[in-house]
């Protein structure tokens, strides 16, 4: 077993994980300037390794990924699973230092999970709520589970992200369900920018044509309940 740490450094590789692909930038003394690669998360390492060997000037060079424990990572492994902390690349007897980062917004569903295997996995973490009542009927197991489901669905709806900066110059969201949720969850109990258009904006022939009404902006999402309650109530 070759200890990667004892090998001479032959360059560095910066890995950036994106939602559907992984981007790697290789810097090496053998290259005039850094070279950028990109592979789908479902691609196998092998193609990258052969490119790497070619670009470093020797197509027959042995390129291998080594895990922190010293095990060789199979070149058939896909990029999604392969790039983890502690992995290094050994190319032709020299070590290529690997740095891994995630692009903001990339899927990192396991973040915050206590299990390291889950944290590094790209699969969404499934969570279960189990409602049990043995064989007794009519306790409300179904109603409890369904109601929890409704609450989870509503709170995780991306449309309900607090709109801290209302957009006075854009068209109000035409989707009635989105609007209802936005009004309820982000602007309650103060006046809403959308409500100021009139009691029934649905019948407005062209809501974008009119200038945006004067209104106080919604409080910042993290302002807390006091800031919400301190805002003036809507007047008829």
């Amino acid at each position, binding site marked *: 077993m070759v200890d990667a740490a004892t090998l001479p450094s032959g360059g560095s590789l910066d890995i950036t994980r994106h939602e559907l692909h992984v981007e790697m930038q290789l810097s090496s003394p053998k290259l005039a300037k850094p070279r950028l690669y990109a592979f789908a998360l479902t691609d196998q390492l092998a193609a990258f390794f052969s490119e790497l060997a070619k670009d470093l000037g020797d197509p027959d060079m042995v390129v291998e990924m080594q895990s922190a424990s010293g095990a060789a990572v199979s070149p058939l492994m896909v990029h999604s699973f392969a790039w983890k902390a502690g992995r290094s690349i050994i190319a032709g007897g020299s070590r290529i230092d690997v740095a891994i980062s995630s692009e903001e917004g990339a899927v990192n569903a396991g973040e915050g999970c206590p299990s390291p295997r889950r944290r590094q996995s790209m699969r969404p973490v499934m969570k279960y709520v189990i409602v049990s009542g043995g*064989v007794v009927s009519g306790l409300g197991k*179904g109603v409890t*589970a*369904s*109601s929890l*489901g*409704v609450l*989870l*669905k509503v709170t*995780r709806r991306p449309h309900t992200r607090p709109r801290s900066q209302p957009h006075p110059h854009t068209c109000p969201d035409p989707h009635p369900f989105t609007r209802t949720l936005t009004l309820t969850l982000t602007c309650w109990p103060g006046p809403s920018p959308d409500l100021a258009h009139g009691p029934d904006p649905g019948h407005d022939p062209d809501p974008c044509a009119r200038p945006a009404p004067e209104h106080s902006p919604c409080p910042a999402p993290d302002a807390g309940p006091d800031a919400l309650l301190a805002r003036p109530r809507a007047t008829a």
Partner: protein
Amino acid sequence: MTSIKIDPYLNIDAGTMSPFEHGEVFVLDDGGEADLDLGNYERFNDITLTRDNNITTVYG
């Protein structure tokens, strides 16, 4: 988000029981026959369930 109903019957589910034993049957979109409760879950949560959302105990 989805719902799974776990019924404590052995090797049988509400869909395969006789009407005298269980009563009515709810047919899911994929043809699975299940307890009426699954219909309520579909309606309440605005989801579509399949036969996989209905599990019973298997013995032996």
